[in-house]
């Protein structure tokens, strides 16, 4: 990892920009991760420049998804302008959530960076020293290793590869911000773009390999049953997913409850029935709900206490559905959502 690519360097550039924007009043507040106690990196909504002292815009781990944090206070348009510094997959989810009417992006500027990836929470927790390094995929979460959307998202992106160290505007909103900060620099971005397409190709290969392996390991419905056999129904995958925003999930609705006699019936059919018996319905239902909007961020997999490759599975399914609808989650805020309706009955035949 070269010096300009180090997290420390990226963080100091990002903090400079934020400080400038907040200090000059061009923006009213900023949402960034900050360093908390016990190796934690909670998101913070900051309006006071002095509070930026603890800011760590690019933390080594992803504890809460940035779009989820953003959605917690932006359903109504914010009064002042807000700058949110987040990873590319977080910016994409923010765009998806705005289409789903969970975020109002009107007064929000999204600043991203060339993302090095994130360290798995379980490994970081040990001593808090592992650094995410895109040249060493084994430091990264499985979904980060195969991420192909690692740069150029949101309104602006901090480019640190291809010999650059500058903020590249991606939208008129981004353009305007750079203008007002007096940071607009003409520069040749071709080497940077080359870097991105090179890494993108490498990642595509990893992604294809990973999908092949998954399909081999968990083939068809029987395969899915196996994949989820260790699921303990903690539903953390759902809770941490930026796209799963329902207050009450379909699986928890009272009318989904079955009487004891029905469980016995199922048990008699095959001699035994696994409990909690709605595991598969939950996962297939969730995939059906959000596979079009999945941004492959890997939050679900990172939170899963049972080491189920849940993120890779959803992301694989998502690849297929988005291809079918020729849709790319979070890439373009103009593209309409391909599906607005979902019928639960569609899935009943998959229930075990």
């Amino acid at each position, binding site marked *: 990892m070269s010096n300009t690519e180090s997290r420390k360097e990226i963080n100091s550039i990002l903090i400079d920009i934020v400080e400038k924007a907040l200090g000059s009043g061009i923006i009213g*507040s900023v949402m960034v991760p900050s360093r*908390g106690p016990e190796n934690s990196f909670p998101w913070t909504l900051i309006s006071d420049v002095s509070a930026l002292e603890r800011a760590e815009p690019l933390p080594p781990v992803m504890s809460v998804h940035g779009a989820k944090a953003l959605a917690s206070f932006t359903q109504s348009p914010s009064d002042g302008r807000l700058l949110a510094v987040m990873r590319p997959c977080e910016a994409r989810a923010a765009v998806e959530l705005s289409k789903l009417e969970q975020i109002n992006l009107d007064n929000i500027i999204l600043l991203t960076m060339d993302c090095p990836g994130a360290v798995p929470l379980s490994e970081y*927790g040990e001593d808090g020293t592992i650094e995410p390094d895109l040249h060493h995929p084994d430091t990264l979460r499985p979904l980060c290793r195969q991420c192909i959307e690692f740069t150029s998202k949101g309104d602006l992106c901090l480019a640190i590869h291809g010999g650059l160290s500058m903020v590249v505007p991606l939208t008129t909103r981004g353009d305007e911000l750079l203008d007002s900060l007096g940071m607009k620099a003409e520069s040749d971005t071709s080497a940077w773009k080359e870097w991105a397409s090179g890494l993108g190709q490498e990642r595509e290969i990893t992604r294809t390999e990973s999908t092949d392996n998954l399909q081999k390991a968990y083939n068809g419905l029987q395969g899915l049953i196996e994949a989820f056999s260790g699921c303990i129904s903690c539903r953390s995958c759902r809770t941490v997913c930026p796209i799963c925003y329902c207050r009450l999930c379909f699986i928890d609705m009272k009318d989904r409850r079955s009487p004891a006699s029905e469980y016995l019936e199922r048990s008699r059919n095959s001699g035994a029935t696994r409990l909690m018996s709605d595991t598969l319905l939950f996962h297939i239902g969730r995939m059906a709900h959000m596979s079009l909007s999945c941004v492959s961020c890997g939050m679900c997999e990172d939170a899963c*206490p*049972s080491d189920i490759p849940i993120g890779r599975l959803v992301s694989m399914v998502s690849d297929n559905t988005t291809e079918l609808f020729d849709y790319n989650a979070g890439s373009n805020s103009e593209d309409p959502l391909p599906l607005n309706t979902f019928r639960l009955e569609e899935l009943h035949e998959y229930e075990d």
Partner: protein
Amino acid sequence: MIENSVLISTSSTLDTMRRLLTQLLENREVDSVFALRETRQEGRYCYSLITDPSLVSEVLPFHPVMPVQGARALSNLTITEPFDRPVAALLRPCEIRAFVENVKQSQGSLENIFIISCTCPGVIPASRLLGEERDEVLRNPDENIRNACRACTEFIPGAQADMTVIIASDKPLDGAVIYLHSERAVETAEKFDSCTLEKGPPPTELTSELLEARGKALKELLRDIPAPGDGLRSLVSLFSACIGCRGCREACPLCSCVLCDYETARTAHSPELVRAEAKRKGSLRVPSGTLQFQLGRLMHISPICTSCGQCSDVCPVDIPVSDIFIRAANLVQESLNYFPGRDTDDTPPLATFVEKELLDITD
């Protein structure tokens, strides 16, 4: 109550248990068996409802794992209606206690459930069984059990159990020893061949050393872990790494609300409020409400927490959730003079719960 009748068998506990369950199913003494099995994936377990006697050979009675809290699974089965035919359920003491609390809150029914429990040696955190050191860990369960189990002094089942299988005991047993607590248990045992029925010492006599060790561990846990009464700062720090996955709540057998209070519009902080608060303080953690959720759950659950440790087990960032809950439960339950799961007839304190009553214990 049958005083200390014991079924003694010279074959292993595993073998005896499986034969007993097969007999129960084959004689139609029960319709189904609720027990642990290994899934098709090694090292991963699940509860199953078994009706086919030939599948009993897959049952792992009291294997030291708790993939889901048994009460939660049983509540799922019986929440809309009770079993109309007997089912034999293999449950650990803390699972029974949690289920008794479920029943009190109309989240399930004990009707037709024949409970087979054990003197419980504890369970191993699921994460320790996922790695390569799995076999090693399973060979030394005592060194690897949950924190909550290490400090569990209620490892002998209460009055709801029909049978108690001696698993944990001070001295190793040769063969199986099963205490019979109900007429039905005695009837079942009388039909069971290759065993003898005797009178034994009370099960507490077989586990007095264990009780002492657990009591000591409990004291240490209570001494070392901060409680809400010790000031908010320590809790803020303990929960700082919380990722808000709510796994602790979903795994908890006692958190049975369809929609958690802290997911409702009533407790949600409005966008305007969050933004105003951030402006006022200069900086605010978002999403807000991490501690509100934890303190709220503490308030709701500490009176009825059965100290099973399931919440800690699922926490992906290793927050000692159950230690905190056990400490709070200890304080609260003692002051309310309420012991969750002891008796279905004890009125739960929350039946008459006024939120303000507990404020003095929360901060």
